[in-house]
């Protein structure tokens, strides 16, 4: 599974811009870029669903309240499954678990990566060597198989174990990117000035280095959140999460276990999978939009009327 190659954006000196202006600028950037607009709207919809699932779906996602195999109707927008559970309610309530995983893992992995990557680059010497080897080793060990064996020994321990396992194993790619970005900053004048002022390393890293890398950090968060959604759903799908949580991956697990495709209940498997794809697309679109804003060379061009050289 290759990570998408996100171009390392050139400098983004956002640190000096007052907060209000920065927000306005982000707003303008989102509106002017079609990918960013679509991504933001999709993500906002999912966040609303996750916050107020009860308003949208009136049924309980876990109650076996209805006749099994009911077709699609106004009462059951996606029908019911083999256990007589309302599928629409399952998909709506499942949003919360997925979004929690996406945001917690996204923030935690990016946080660890920022600390380790920037510290390695800024401190240099032995620190850099040690942290580098740690990052490299983790980068090389195949992530998904490792998660599978961890989850296998943990025996369906639920969302918290899932979050911890994914976080601890998947920060290395971001750390590597951030380190190379921080290395290019190392000998800039403003950092030399801070050192001459006699500031402590921690202060320089947190107050001077990290703010200049905001755009790369945000892009990393989006990538990590996307991968968290895909990894967690995959693990839940093969039955390595807690099968009793309400989540898209778990719904897929029960669908596969009951051979939903073969028994004429395709929606049981299609609907939660489509939701994963849509949420994933939201993160991916935002990420690419960020890339385009940071790296103008990649922006789509209008077809020019330039005569093609022959």
């Amino acid at each position, binding site marked *: *599974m*290759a990570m*998408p*190659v996100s*171009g390392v954006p050139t400098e983004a000196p956002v640190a000096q811009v007052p907060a209000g202006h920065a927000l306005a600028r982000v707003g303008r950037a989102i509106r002017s870029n079609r*990918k960013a607009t679509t991504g933001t709207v999709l993500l906002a919809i999912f966040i609303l669903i996750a916050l107020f699932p009860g308003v949208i779906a009136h049924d309980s996602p876990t109650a076996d309240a209805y006749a099994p195999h009911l077709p699609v109707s106004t009462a059951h927008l996606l029908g019911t499954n083999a256990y007589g559970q309302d599928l629409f309610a399952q998909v709506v309530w499942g949003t919360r678990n997925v979004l929690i995983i996406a945001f917690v893992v996204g923030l935690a992995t990016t946080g660890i990566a920022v600390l380790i990557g920037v510290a390695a680059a800024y401190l240099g010497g032995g620190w850099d060597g040690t942290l580098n*080897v740690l990052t*490299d*080793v983790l980068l*090389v*060990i*195949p992530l*998904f*198989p*490792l998660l*599978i*064996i*961890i989850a*296998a*020994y*943990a*025996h369906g321990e639920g969302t918290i174990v899932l979050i911890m396992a994914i976080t601890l194993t998947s920060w290395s790619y971001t750390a590597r990117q951030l380190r190379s970005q921080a290395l290019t900053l190392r000998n800039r004048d403003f950092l030399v000035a801070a050192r001459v002022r006699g500031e402590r390393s921690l202060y320089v890293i947190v107050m001077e280095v990290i703010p200049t890398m905001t755009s790369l950090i945000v892009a990393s968060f989006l990538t990590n959140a*996307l991968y968290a959604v*895909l990894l967690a*759903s*995959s693990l839940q*799908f*093969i*039955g*390595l999460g807690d099968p009793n949580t309400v989540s898209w991956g778990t719904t*897929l697990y029960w669908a*596969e276990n009951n051979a939903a*495709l*073969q028994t004429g209940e*395709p929606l049981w*498997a*299609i609907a939660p*999978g*489509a939701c*994963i*794809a849509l*949420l*994933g*697309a939201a*993160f*991916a*679109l935002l990420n*690419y939009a960020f890339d385009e804003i940071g790296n103008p*060379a*990649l922006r*789509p*061009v*209008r*077809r*020019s009327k330039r005569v*093609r*050289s*022959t």
Partner: protein
Amino acid sequence: MRYALRRLGFFVLTLWVALTLNFLLPRLMPGNPALAMMTKFHDQGATPQTLKTLETLFGVNSQQSLLGQYFGYLHHMLTGNFGTSLSEYPASVASVIGSAIWWTLGLVGITTILAFALGTGLGIVSAWRRGGKLDSIVPPVFVITSAIPYFWVAMVLVLIFALSLHWFPSQGGYYVTTDTPGFNLTFFQDVINHAFLPAMALLITTIGTWILTMRNTMITTLAEDYVRMARAKGLPGWRIMFDYAARNAILPNLVGFAMSLGFVVSGAILIEYVFNYPGVGYMLLQAVDGEDYPLMQALFLLITVAVLFAILAADILTAILDPRTRAAR
């Protein structure tokens, strides 16, 4: 030379980390999963010798200290003694893996090569005709496909082409009941028929990375002076496209290709699972399901070693193809 030695050291270190993870995980996890497994082996009527090997591998009922267990375990691993499979008892783990690996190498290996060749080609054309039809369709489409869980693509393909249209079989590697493996045309056709849908699922979900990487690198090389000079010389378009722009842009994709060969073994776990394809990935999940820890350990090790070799290959490839990296080191 010093660089090569350092890389070698790094590979040994990574291998050691993988081995140690395999050793520590079953011992650290709550509820002693290994003990439950040993009970099952007992019920299977395992020989005392088998049980003794497994005790060293998993540290159950062992009188040895943890350090002693660790060295015993390392010794077994380095001498290629991976123990006995629980789910396929009494077959050894090595022989069980040996029967599955060819299915994975065939399916995923060939599909990886196809995806690389096709994706790179599309990327070249897409960058060359910047803003053209292909270029305006391909990137946004693959932004979306990169976010789709690939097991779900597999499920959709099964639904459409196997269950609704009945064009292809929905699972397995060949018709187990009517066909016997052998070197003949019917068996060959049967295998291709079964491999088609899993291969498509894999192709759809992996090709986007190749296209986008190639396109983005080539857009950069197209702006270089030597391309402008080739245009000024009046060279034909296809020569500029392949010999000047694509040739200098292909390095990241080639290195990525070398790397991706390492992920052939582990890259299609979920697709094999959806199709019940008799390869290594499906076997790993079966081992997890049946609590066949010796098989699981050995597969994880195999997957890691494959990736390490691929990275080594990518390193060598970069050194050969890009003179700048040689000078820098």
